[in-house]
């Protein structure tokens, strides 16, 4: 009668990752298409309208210069908001209990929830690149830098989304972090301009913004040049991503805020 289920493999993890991905595809116009359209409009409106006034930055046409930052902005927001809303919803409606009571290890739960945000962000990044590269002609000069920069960036913001999803008491908390913390930091992180052109103290202050380093690393991956050194940029992003992921892991392991 009772069937022995598989407890040794990663089947539960794969199903959880699949569920998180399914949610993204079921709402694809909202979760994937809308951010691509919005960022494409930024490229068209800012890139082409301002390129008459701002001819070149760091040797690149303005419309090319802003593409890496816009892709970064779209991806980090998607990774964050996907996980914060998905985990918060699961907690709020209490269907997360179905996962918490399942024979899955805490690292599998953490990874499973984070994969959803990462895949959604990658879909947006790929879609936006597919639009932006032909339109603007932006090159991809350092793909080997682009890979770790994107990987650590998505790890950071997926984990941040998961953490906020776990701590949030209302949906407002999730939007508060997005609108009051992430979005302003992205805008002053050098998406639309080169930080090296800023006067003091804004130039120095920009270096305290962690998103500046992520934008810088991604820009280096595309253009082969950026405001900060590539090692520092990837290093700072990784140094933030790893503790953030471990924090999310601790929440799943300890049950803090997930279990009364």
């Amino acid at each position: 009668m009772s069937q022995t289920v598989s407890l040794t493999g990663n089947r539960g993890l794969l199903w959880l990752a699949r569920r998180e991905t399914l949610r993204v595809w079921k709402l694809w116009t909202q979760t994937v298409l809308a951010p691509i359209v919005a960022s494409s409009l930024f490229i068209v409106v800012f890139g082409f309208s301002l390129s008459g006034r701002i001819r070149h930055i760091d040797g690149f046409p303005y419309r090319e210069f802003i593409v890496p930052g816009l892709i970064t902005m779209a991806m980090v927001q998607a990774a964050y908001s996907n996980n914060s809303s998905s985990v918060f919803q699961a907690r709020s409606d209490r269907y997360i209990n179905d996962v918490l009571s399942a024979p899955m290890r805490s690292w599998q739960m953490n990874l499973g929830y984070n994969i959803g945000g990462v895949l959604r962000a990658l879909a947006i990044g790929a879609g936006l690149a597919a639009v932006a590269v032909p339109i603007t002609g932006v090159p991809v000069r350092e793909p080997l830098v682009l890979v770790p920069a994107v990987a650590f960036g998505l790890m950071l913001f997926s984990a941040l989304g998961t953490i906020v999803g776990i701590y949030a008491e209302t949906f407002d908390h999730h939007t508060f972090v997005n609108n009051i913390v992430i979005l302003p930091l992205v805008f002053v992180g050098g998406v639309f301009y080169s930080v090296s052109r800023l006067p003091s103290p804004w130039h120095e202050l920009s270096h305290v913004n962690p998103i500046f380093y992520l934008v810088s690393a991604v820009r280096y991956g595309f253009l082969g040049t950026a405001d900060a050194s590539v090692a520092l940029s990837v290093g700072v992003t990784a140094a933030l991503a790893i503790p953030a992921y471990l924090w999310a892991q601790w929440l799943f392991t300890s049950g803090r805020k997930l279990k009364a």
Partner: protein
Amino acid sequence: MIDSLGRVPVSAPALDVRRLTKRYDDGTVALEDFDLTIPEGMFFGLLGPNGAGKTTLINAVCNLIRITAGDVRVFGEPGSSLLARSWVGLAEQDINLDRFLTVEETLVYHGGWFGMTKHDAERRAAEMIDVFDLRAKSDVRTPKLSGGMRRRLLLARALMHRPRLVILDEPTASVDFELRQELWRYIRRLHEKGTTILLTTHYLEEAEALCEEIALIRAGRLIARDTASGLRRAYTADSLTEVYVKAMHEQPCPVEEAAA
């Protein structure tokens, strides 16, 4: 413990709770030094008013709360172990269905994170859909189901991975008479095949008709435990309802009196 052939000795009770204490963060003590043993194969009822600690006990067994002290074992295995979790099926008191999934997906994904293969999960889901008469709604998302349908789906989900211990936390709350009779017929058949059932309900006549043994719980403590007829004798009552009223409102437990 499991023997060298991977078998669990028959002597291990389905549920063995020792000195379980749960103190919530706000200081509320829901259970204190709570002991309960349910032999394998028993249909066991847990009765008590709201706030008595029934759901806390269930959540402790299902790894959904952080217990303050004590020990929970399921068929001899620590309650937090993967093996123990794979043996328990829970239908919670509140409807907690994933709003993004259809009826069929709810069951298949549940099977997935309990380690079932896609093929097994789909086959079992089809079986559960037929048993609980959900065929016409199998492609419908859960928010669009009626209350009765959601309750059926909750039960189907709890039984999806063929658990050895099925925990039903007020499964027939707000369920009409016909569906209640239908659900109990299925649960009875399941019990006849050897599944251990732990039931909480406010319908005392249901508990009397179904349960081989009944425990009365009040303010986080077990105050009496016996067969329905044994409880009636102990409380010199004509019905379980009278037992309940005396136990919860009027008299100290005869067992406690005798011990004093």
